[in-house]
């Protein structure tokens, strides 16, 4: 085992799942945090206690429980805002990153909204990349279909980097939406450069930070983005909660998305006025306890320290890339160096289907990896492969677990020899 700056054994004790055994006494080797992360006691207990003793609806209620819930819910917004260097009024709670991305997509081409930055029609262009998660492709396809706008994209090089060709972003581009870090390749994209190019032509830029915010210190101002989306369940927070950050001025300019209670100022039968952001985009009873759980997750991550987490994952990635190089007939899809990449390593094994790899790793070794196209089918088509096996690391992983993965892969090759 290689030691890193984190006291991983202590951290693992915070996550109750690591105290369980899988059926047949297999230990759990969880290398699937890119899919969803495990939860520390702090998050679980914060949610339990709130549900048990302090729960009520927020905003509307004027009694003790209502005040306690509202304070906890809005306090979570403060925490999340602080975590990414944002102002609290710019933090919109959604149910996941996908809702956040769709919210932005639905802001464009709404005939009711005349702000020129958000009008969209034939001739206008939307730009994404070939390495996006489906959640950052399909909303834009649907938008293009509804409005007649054109969807364009940056390609990906053989090394798994963006091919920053000229002519993709043009004077006709209205919005550029791109992953901060790829959920398959691990590649960290040059988002500041992309923001520069987008702003140069008057376009807006949205960063899908689902895979970066959990793993690196992220400051939304420094990224020079207009919108940033991320999701609670990948950052040791609960399911059911996501975040859209946007510049206040843009939230004001955008039309409402979901209509309903809490997003209004006044309602008559024939018209309504809307609450200021962020509430304007939070229709109905929000994921109250989930936001509070995300606040606890932010406390937990901050307590450990994002820099330390980043450094630890870097060590794990270095170790994994080296170890996988020793496995015969294994090909890493994505950057093979540590430069501008995070702790997600995807690979293929010659002649063996990833589904078989994943199942045997799980079945025989308790190693949980993800297999398939990881909601990035176009990227797999680009590499001419139907699927990959993906190992993704987080603060609670050890080099010993990477050893277990490698042992498992050798066994897989024996089974299918």
């Amino acid at each position, binding site marked *: 085992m290689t030691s890193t700056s984190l006291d991983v054994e202590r951290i693992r004790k915070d996550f109750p799942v690591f105290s369980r055994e899988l059926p047949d006494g297999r230990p759990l080797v969880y290398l699937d945090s890119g899919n969803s992360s495990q939860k520390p006691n702090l998050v679980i207990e914060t949610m339990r206690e709130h549900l048990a003793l302090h729960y009520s609806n927020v905003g509307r209620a004027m009694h003790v429980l209502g005040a306690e819930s509202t304070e906890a819910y809005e306090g979570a917004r403060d925490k999340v805002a602080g975590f990414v260097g944002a102002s609290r009024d710019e933090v919109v709670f959604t149910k996941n990153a996908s809702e956040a991305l769709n919210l932005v997509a639905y802001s464009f081409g709404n005939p009711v909204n005349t702000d020129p930055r958000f009008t969209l029609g034939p001739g206008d262009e939307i730009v994404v990349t070939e390495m996006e998660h489906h959640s950052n492709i399909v909303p834009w396809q649907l938008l293009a279909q509804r409005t007649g706008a054109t969807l364009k994209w940056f390609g990906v090089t053989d090394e798994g980097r963006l091919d920053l060709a000229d002519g993709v972003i043009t004077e006709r581009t209205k919005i550029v939406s791109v992953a901060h870090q790829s959920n398959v390749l691990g590649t960290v994209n040059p988002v500041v450069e992309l923001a520069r190019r987008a702003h140069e032509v008057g376009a807006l830029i949205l960063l899908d930070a689902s895979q970066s915010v959990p793993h690196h210190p992220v400051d939304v101002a420094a990224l020079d983005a207009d919108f940033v989306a991320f999701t609670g369940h990948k950052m040791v927070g609960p399911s059911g909660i996501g975040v859209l950050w946007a510049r206040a001025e843009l939230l004001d300019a955008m039309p409402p998305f979901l209509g309903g209670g809490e997003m209004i100022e006044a309602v008559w039968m024939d018209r309504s006025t809307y609450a200021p952001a962020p509430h304007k985009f939070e229709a109905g009873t929000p994921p109250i306890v989930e936001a509070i759980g995300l606040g606890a997750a932010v406390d937990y991550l901050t307590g450990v320290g994002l820099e330390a987490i980043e450094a630890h994952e870097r060590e794990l990635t270095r170790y994994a890339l080296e170890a996988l190089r020793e496995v015969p007939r294994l090909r890493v899809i994505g950057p093979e160096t540590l430069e501008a990449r995070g702790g997600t390593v995807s690979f293929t094994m010659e002649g063996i289907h990833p*589904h078989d790899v994943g199942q045997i790793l799980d*079945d025989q070794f308790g190693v949980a990896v993800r297999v398939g196209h990881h909601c990035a089918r176009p990227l797999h088509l680009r590499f001419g492969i139907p699927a990959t096996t993906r190992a993704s690391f987080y603060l609670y992983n050890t080099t010993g677990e990477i050893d277990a993965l490698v042992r498992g892969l050798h066994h897989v090759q024996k089974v*299918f020899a």
Partner: protein
Amino acid sequence: MIGESMYQELILEHYKHPQGRGLREPYDAEVHHVNPTCGDEITLRVKVDGDKVLDVSYDGQGCSISQAAASVLHELTTGSSVAESLSVVDEFTRLMQGRGQVEADEDVLGDAVAFAGVAKFPARVKCALLSWMAYKDAVVRSAAQ
């Protein structure tokens, strides 16, 4: 654990040494089925004479489960009657969709009982069924001609 595993010796055997693989002539119907979620594909041909299945030939790519299932399908159907083979398909489908709760009828299924363990993995059930659904489709089409 070994007993629970879905990688029965028999499945691996069929995967490594597929029976009847390759597309052959003559045939009455050819179908191409794809599982878009995992990319598994199969092209399958049937040659039927009256009530008798003369040949089931196929080619495809995918995981061991989908490939072995095609091999077992070939063995169980080629040479049997159409009606009999379709009842095997039905029993196999019932087993696969039973979420691991269904007892397999070994008399009907023969080698295909080895797939019982797959039924507990919803994500893999489609792999096992790919070729069997393709076969059913092909038989229907051949009858329609």
